[in-house]
């Protein structure tokens, strides 16, 4: 299909909107009516047609506007993109992975023409047509990681692997759920996850690290993670928290359906061939509560998940103060009927909301 790219903003007037298509394919992160941490990894080998799992690097209607937002974030704060000196080769690996994947998966949007080390990259949505020499940084306007991730939705952490650990040694981080690359760069897997409550004690990170260290080339993995964001703000950075934090207090029972967004990360993991680093794309999808409620299954389930979530998690995810108002809103969409297993909305088979 041909994607119609939206002209929209993720700040100021927040003109971001999801089409019906985008709502239906939204990666709702709850496969059952409750939530707790788990090492919820699965192979990233495609998925249902049209779903966000189908392609290696999903491109959707928000692509062009998200890239414009990223450029603005980087203009304001270049430290959102950093790469320690030993990570340049991994940056080339990532550039190759994305260019090859996108040109194969979206041949109408992206083209890659390779003649030895001379590569020509055509990005039609962004109007880019560049010829460069692979592995020669002087032939690109930015370092290889920055060049390609200015053209790819989602954040990208590039993890060095050594001493049986993963190290956050490079990244392009502008759509983050409130963590700072500038602070965390150089940390190992346990250090950068240190602030997460409960999961260390549950052994989640030890098991996850073991899994990630063993991801081989050609067998990427994926998982979903989630949080909550008031307004469709992509750049919920700690750096700017003193500016955006106040927006969390603007919810009212009248506007919560439009302003409160479920924020979902599609996290994928790819072994990189030359550097043996691990590419860790973190793709952010936003959906307003009122759009989610158009799917009866999601309405029922979201109410149940948020109601039963441990306070530690609601605090860590930053919505403990707004939870009562969320529950008042969501309760209208939970008629007590059972839900089918799995994350997909299944609007054709799930019963409509019982009213009255």
């Amino acid at each position, binding site marked *: 299909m041909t994607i119609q790219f939206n002209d929209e903003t993720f700040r100021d007037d927040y003109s971001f909107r999801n089409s019906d298509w985008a709502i239906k394919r939204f990666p709702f992160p709850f496969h059952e009516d409750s939530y707790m941490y788990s090492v919820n990894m699965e192979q990233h080998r495609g998925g249902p047609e049209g779903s966000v799992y189908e392609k290696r690097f999903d491109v959707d209607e928000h692509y062009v506007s998200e890239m414009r937002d990223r450029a603005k974030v980087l203009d304001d704060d270049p*430290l959102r993109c950093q790469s320690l000196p030993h990570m340049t080769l991994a940056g080339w690996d990532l550039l190759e992975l994305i260019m090859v994947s996108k040109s194969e998966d979206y041949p109408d949007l992206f083209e890659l023409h390779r003649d030895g080390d001379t590569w020509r990259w055509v990005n039609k949505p962004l109007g880019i047509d560049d010829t460069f020499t692979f592995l020669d940084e002087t032939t690109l306007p930015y370092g290889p990681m920055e060049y390609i991730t200015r053209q790819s939705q989602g954040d990208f952490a590039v993890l060095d692997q050594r001493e049986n650990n993963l190290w956050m040694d490079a990244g392009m981080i502008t759509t983050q759920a409130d963590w*700072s690359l*500038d*602070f*965390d*760069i*150089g*940390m190992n897997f*346990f*250090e*950068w*996850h*240190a*602030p997460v409550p409960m999961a*260390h004690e549950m052994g989640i990170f030890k098991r996850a690290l073991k899994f990630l260290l063993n991801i081989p080339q050609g067998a990427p993995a994926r998982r979903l993670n989630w949080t909550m964001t008031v307004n469709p703000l992509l750049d919920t950075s*700690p*750096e*700017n*928290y*003193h*500016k*955006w*934090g*106040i927006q*969390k*207090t603007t919810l009212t029972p009248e506007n919560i359906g439009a302003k409160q967004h479920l924020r979902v990360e599609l996290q994928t993991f790819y072994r990189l061939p030359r550097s043996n680093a691990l590419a860790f794309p973190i793709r952010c999808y936003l959906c307003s509560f009122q759009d989610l409620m158009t799917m009866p299954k999601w309405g029922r389930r979201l109410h149940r998940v948020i109601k039963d979530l441990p306070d530690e998690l609601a605090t860590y995810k930053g919505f403990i*103060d707004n939870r009562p108002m969320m529950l008042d809103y969501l309760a209208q969409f939970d008629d007590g009927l059972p839900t089918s297993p799995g994350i997909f909305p299944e609007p054709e088979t799930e019963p409509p909301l019982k009213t009255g």
Partner: protein
Amino acid sequence: MSKFEFPPSIKSRPVWGTFEERKGSAFLFIADAEGADAIIDIATPDLMAKAHIIFINRGTDYAEKLRALAPAQFYEGPSYDAALSRIKRVLSDAKMGIQVYLSGTESLMGQAANEATLAGVPLASIQTEHRGSTARRMQCVHCKGFTEDVETDPFQCSHCGLNLFVRDHYSRRLAAYQAVCIDAEDPGNVPPSKGIYE
């Protein structure tokens, strides 16, 4: 003086040790204020014969006691910043087999450990021992400025003036804890400061 027992914390936070004797070709001691006591506790004539002590007095009068240990080289300076160029030079001249001993405040140990690592000293050759002040070196996540000797939570950023709360999240690269605006969601509502470990 008794040592402060840091409460259990998150995994990014460093755990400080206790000096022990090790074999080495050279011994570099970097200490501030009460950190001098950790050197005095481990000093022997043999060790001191191959020792270089860099001492940042921070207004204390330990220097004479350290000089009395007769180290091969001794330097006394008023602050870490003043001593930094010398520390960098000494580390750049260091040979294989050097043992590095860092003692005193977390700020001193964190910054000096980072310099030593950048100079190629393996982590296994760096020992630490906390003595004296438990104040923290904090980085404001908003303006990126560092505020030294933070003893209370919340505190005011010495650069941008925001009211910040003290996190346990720690970066070795920055040798600092992270500080985040405390009243972003309710401007002006800043709880009274109390000691970090109260």
